[in-house]
């Protein structure tokens, strides 16, 4: 699979990671070599095989819906980059 600059820009935008123009050629080379290795998968016929998303058949042990811990907002916000009066601050979203 060839990774065009357009595809790279699309996945960079989807994953919210800015990519420096200077590293783009090398990055494309690396991503293409990884995908080339990944495409070895096409050598095997998987028609009729169920996809496996998880190693365990018995998963999702759900807890009872009971409150177990109080909200410790101040404690959790202590290490936030910027907060005000219990809110997380970001640059203005709506002008």
């Amino acid at each position, binding site marked *: 699979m060839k990774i065009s600059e357009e595809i790279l820009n699309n996945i960079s935008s989807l994953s919210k*990671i800015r990519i420096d123009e200077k590293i783009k050629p090398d990055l494309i080379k*690396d991503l293409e070599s990884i995908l080339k290795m990944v495409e070895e998968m096409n050598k095997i016929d*998987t028609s009729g095989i*169920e996809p*496996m998303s998880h*190693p365990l058949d018995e998963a999702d042990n759900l807890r009872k819906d009971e409150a177990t811990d109080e909200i410790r907002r101040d404690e959790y916000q202590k290490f936030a*980059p910027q907060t005000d009066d219990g809110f997380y601050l970001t640059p203005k979203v709506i002008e």
Partner: protein
Amino acid sequence: MEDLSKLSLVEQINGLKLKKFSSMELTEFYLNKIDQEKVLNSFISLNENALTEAKKSDEKIAKNKNSSLEGIPIAHKDIFCIKDQKTTCGSKMLENFISPYSSTVYEKLSNSGTVNLGKTNMDEFAMGSSNETSFFGSVLNPIDPERVPGGSSGGSASAVAANLCSFATGTDTGGSIRQPAAFCGITGIKPTYGRVSRWGMIAFASSLDQGGIFAKNALDAALALENIAGFDEKDSTSINKKVPPFFDQAKLKDKEHIVGIPKNIIEDIKDEKVKNNFYESIDILKKSGVKVKEIDLKNIQYSLPVYYVIAPAECSANLSRYDGVRFGHRCDNPKDLDDLYERSRAEGFGEEVKKRILIGTYCLSAGYYDAYYLKAQKIRNLIKQSFMDAFKEVTSIMMPTCANVSFKLNSIQNPVEMYEQDIYTIPANLAGLPAISIPSGKINKLPLGIQFIGNYLEEGNLLNLSNKFQQNSDFHNE
């Protein structure tokens, strides 16, 4: 005074109980050694309260109120959250992150009486096979400081091998306990997926991540593993099964083993010395009375491509939480919200992590999902099936841990070549099976490891087999 750091965990427990030495003495011993071996860069942070914890343990021992691992100084991979302590996951993103809660693994070991010496270095977000992707610098292999300790749990492996702690915790998503254990000449076990709680263990690829142990030998590993395993209602993928006494199981004398040798994989080993070591290891097993049987493990060769779809896909979702808003690195002067996200993530993540997020995002994006993600999940099922077929005939499967010994720092630049480090370890993660790596000899003074893979929940069986091997060999003491 004798070198207390060289004693095994079992010997240290006895020494403490018989008051041959105190936990304070043992802890000071290790702290001095950590200081002397700073150059290895095994630790990211040290626990300021280690001696206070040791003192408390000594008081408990004096009153005969000691827990099973009372006063034993250990180290934790810096992926396990510890309340009010720094937890960085080897990343600039979490350089200043102080966790508001503790992981279950830490809590359990703390309740067992261990003394926490500090947090060990690791590849950033556990993505790497050499410990070179850490924001806090590479870790050196204590056996040859020009070489890597393996990864991602390189700091823990290096610390145990250099006798800087009694044992250490680690995590294994595609080989991150077993490969560094092999490179550093120690024992490392990744239990069955779901055996050890993932609560408070920073997520990389949630259907593959599993916590485990680095130790000097199989008996020490069994004892340590006993203390971290078990059902945890805080982890919805935790297995609700009683934990058997692994230490007692490891010591059982009359346990029968039929070890499967996947002929197709062994024949393809490229390095003749690695191949010879593998056959020599089979001989050691046979001499210890273990039965060996050739098997065919189909489709295992697809493990690497399957893993490099599934792990990045899951990582791209898991790491979306690092957005520069609630915690972690934030860029200076963001001009709008997108700028905040995009620059914070570009600055906070290292190159390897970004590469994997991009690959994962690509494989999950519209138009590619079926060809990559769904295809990988189907082959994952076939790989699991191959193991299940094999376990109808054998009780465990033996493979090399790695295709080579430790390599020199900065010597692998190609990403795929680095990923190939894990070709023998990844299959167990895809299927969720328990696996252990133990030392099996050396090539030019550099350690090699062999790996045993067991059926679900059969950690005791693997530890028993490994103990048998270690009773008939001396590689783990070299």
